[in-house]
């Protein structure tokens, strides 16, 4: 199983609802392509909803970092929503919890882009 990514717009924030596994190969490529596509279209506020992400490996984490950098360098912001305990632990181990803004409530997350 790879990853499925569904996009929805809430005001000027693009929410990407991700489900499945973000691992080296299809999963990480799908995330990369999705983010680049949004940035290319001028979307600068991106919220990654990872509630249904059951698994992410170091390549997937690398794509999260790359996405963060891509969006930030374009003058935008990328934030993470609803991390599972396992994904939270991975971000703690890799010290990326200090890099990403992580939220657990969508309404609050959307307001945070203001």
């Amino acid at each position: 199983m790879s990853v499925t990514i569904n996009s929805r717009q809430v005001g000027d924030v693009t929410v990407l609802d991700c489900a499945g596994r973000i691992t080296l190969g299809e999963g990480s490529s799908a995330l990369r392509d999705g983010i680049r596509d949004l940035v290319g279209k001028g979307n600068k506020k991106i919220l990654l909803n990872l509630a249904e992400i059951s698994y992410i490996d170091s390549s997937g984490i690398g794509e999260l970092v790359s996405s963060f950098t891509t969006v930030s360098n374009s003058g935008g912001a990328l934030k993470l929503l609803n991390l599972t305990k396992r994904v939270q632990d991975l971000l703690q181990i890799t010290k990326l919890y200090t890099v990403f803004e992580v939220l657990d409530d969508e309404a609050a997350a959307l307001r945070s882009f203001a």
Partner: protein
Amino acid sequence: MSTTEMDAYYDSTLDSVDVAEEKVNHIAVHMGFPEEDVFRLGMAVREAMVNAVVHGNRYSANKKVHFKVSRHPRQIEVRITDEGAGFTPEEHPDPLSEDNILRQSGRGVMLIRAFVDEFVVQPARPAGTEVILRKSLPAAPGTGV
């Protein structure tokens, strides 16, 4: 006394990574590892297999990954050997340093070390790298063992 649970040669493909992870998860479940330990071991094996396939063997159709799982009384041991140019973890950039925190890659070995009890990297003969991952069953409650 140990038992060899599996001893296989895999193609240098991402499918092999999936297969290896699934196999070790299955063995770990049967050994009685708790769910979270199974997950962590599986992830460590995945990371080690990716290193062997991608960085060691560079997806070469002419190179195999040797995958061996042994079962000890209270420990599982996984040996993964590639046919690459060799690898020295000490020369690997620290992914936690400020200079590297936003690098896209380089976190695999760190995750392996975080998820298993022992991680050994050594040259393989005649060439390549062998990594050994060992994880012990948690102590039974009240036994101190």
